[in-house]
């Protein structure tokens, strides 16, 4: 085999030098001449109708213009799957942090100060914060005229009733995974300016091509007239997949003819972007005397908060992964995505596959204990191997090196300490005393060739 130029080689990251010398420019580092600054007024209640009084704010020092829903020149919507976000809310807010107005002033401090002078009068509505509650008849409707339940994934395989009846042990438990924020280290910042008949939006984003479509639709311009520039991105982890301030900036620079910039403080960043979906998980698993898993039944409620973002993909993935990497003949899964008035949830590393191990791996340990087995034994008994069929019917024909992985961990931990196991988990074969890592690797290569 000829030597590959990049694969398997130690190559330096292209932008590392600029980042190490301080010359890499993130949006907050870019200043333009004649620039004005924007700040966003956000809702302080989770659910309700509102009216705005801009009189005081408009008179504040340095304020140039305050943009509201009425100033959105195209469609006042955006969203990756459903267009359920408003660029600026028109009459109703659905979560704390919904954008209501965009204040533009000569300096960032003046814009921030003027935000506090925008008077928002709320008519609060009953709110719902629990996805199971939100699915009930008569629950507050987060989006008027639309069901709170937006997605239902079903997986049906074999006969769980029979599987449970045949089981020596059946364990049922509930688990909850919480909201998590990405906390990418660079808070959102962006700027926009005009170049002839084009609007240029500079923002750290995971989706420049998608942003282009969303900005064009919201401002009512042709796609070709919108350019998204993605400079250096200071971390994202899924949190920059949805629009943050791109459309606000485009609207403002088009209206004012001056470059417009906005930078969020850390606290606003928490309000502004998506979170990891909290998932309420009910899991029931039955196993035979020898540890073989015979049936699994699961009900997953994913809280997507006020907006869908990637809720469908996330809860589908959760529904697929709830069986863990284990072969189970009889499976019955329901996975739901539900609107509530919580912060909205979207993409975050793992995308639904990260929440469910909280349930299924604890469950494996509980089952092992009930059967008098070790956590290792019960896993080795049920692991996906090459040729296994997943609950949703995928035949695993390629690399499935889980068995090798667990063997290595087991070797490292046997007669050793928990620390040895952790070390093995992060360092792999290198951590196994006396292990011949080349042999292990070779074995996994032949196995999966």
């Amino acid at each position, binding site marked *: 085999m000829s030597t590959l130029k990049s694969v398997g080689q*130690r190559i*330096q*990251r292209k*932008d*590392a*030098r*600029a*980042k*190490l*010398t*301080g*010359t*890499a*420019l*993130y949006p*907050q*580092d870019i200043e333009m001449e004649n620039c004005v600054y924007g700040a966003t007024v956000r809702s302080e209640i989770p659910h309700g109708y509102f009216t705005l009084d801009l009189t005081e704010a408009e008179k504040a020092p340095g304020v140039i213009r305050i943009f509201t829903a009425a100033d959105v020149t195209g469609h006042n919507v955006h969203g990756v799957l459903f267009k359920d976000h408003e660029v600026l809310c028109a009459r109703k807010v659905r979560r704390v942090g919904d954008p209501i107005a965009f204040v533009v002033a000569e300096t960032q401090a003046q814009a921030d100060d003027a935000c506090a002078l925008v008077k928002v009068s709320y008519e609060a509505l009953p709110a719902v914060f629990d996805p199971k509650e939100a699915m009930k008849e008569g629950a507050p409707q987060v989006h008027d005229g639309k069901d709170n339940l937006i997605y239902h994934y079903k997986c049906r395989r074999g006969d769980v009733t029979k599987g449970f009846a045949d089981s020596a042990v059946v364990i049922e438990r509930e688990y909850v995974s919480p909201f998590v924020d*990405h*906390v*990418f*280290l*660079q*808070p959102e910042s962006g700027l926009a300016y005009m170049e002839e008949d084009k609007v240029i939006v500079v923002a750290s984003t995971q989706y420049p091509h998608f942003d282009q479509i969303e900005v064009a639709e919201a401002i009512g311009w042709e796609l070709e007239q919108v350019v998204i520039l993605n400079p*250096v*991105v*200071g*971390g*994202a*982890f899924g949190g920059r997949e949805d629009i943050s301030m791109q459309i606000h900036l485009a609207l403002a620079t088009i209206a004012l003819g001056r470059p417009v910039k906005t930078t969020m*403080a*850390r606290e606003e960043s928490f309000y502004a972007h998506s979170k990891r979906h909290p998932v309420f998980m009910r899991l029931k698993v039955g196993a035979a005397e020898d540890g073989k898993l015979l049936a699994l039944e699961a009900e997953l409620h994913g809280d997507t908060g006020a907006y869908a973002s990637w809720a469908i993909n996330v809860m589908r993935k959760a529904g697929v992964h709830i069986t863990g990497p284990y072969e189970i003949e009889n499976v019955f899964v329901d996975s739901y995505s539900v609107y509530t008035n919580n912060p909205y949830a979207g993409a975050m590393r793992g995308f639904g596959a990260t929440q469910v191990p909280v349930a299924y791996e604890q469950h494996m340990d509980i089952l092992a204990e009930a059967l008098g087995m070790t956590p290792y034994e019960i896993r080795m008994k049920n692991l996906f191997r090459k040729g296994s069929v997943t609950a949703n019917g995928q035949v695993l024909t390629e690399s499935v090196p889980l068995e090798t992985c667990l063997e290595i961990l087991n070797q490292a931990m046997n007669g050793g300490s928990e620390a040895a196991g952790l070390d093995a988990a*992060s360092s792999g074969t290198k951590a196994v005393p006396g292990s011949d890592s080349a042999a292990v690797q070779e074995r996994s290569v032949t196995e999966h060739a």
Partner: protein
Amino acid sequence: MITLNLNVNGKDHRLEIEDHMRLLDVIRGPLGLTGTKEGCGEGECGACTVILDGNAVDSCLVLAAQCEGKKIVTIEGLETADGLDPVQQAFLDNGAVQCGYCIPGMVLSAKALLDKNVAPDDNEIKEAISGNLCRCTGYDKMVKAIKTASEVMQERGEQK
């Protein structure tokens, strides 16, 4: 407005600044050194770290007016005609840079440590960067990079 005299990266500056400005604002604003980052503005993340009279400090927590006559080193001040500082070079070689937003602060915390203690042990390294959050790397390669830099600096010291 007040007048502030600062030595930044070896160069003297005399600046007219507003009383309420943080050291971070002066560095990023009038001095235009945007390599120093703001991640939280409240002393939690360390992205704004600079070296102030030899000590790594969060420049978002230092009032600029407190810095009269002081010596400051920012990330822009590390590279010399001879090339990158050993800490920068080691971060590059060890693949310790990802999104980069924590990097200036992280490098300066490491530099401040090595300037005082050229042969720190693992715990001393971890303590020195404990005020610098990184969301991307998991710190492992950074610790390795700082050890590499320590070795390089010791070798150079012996040669001198």
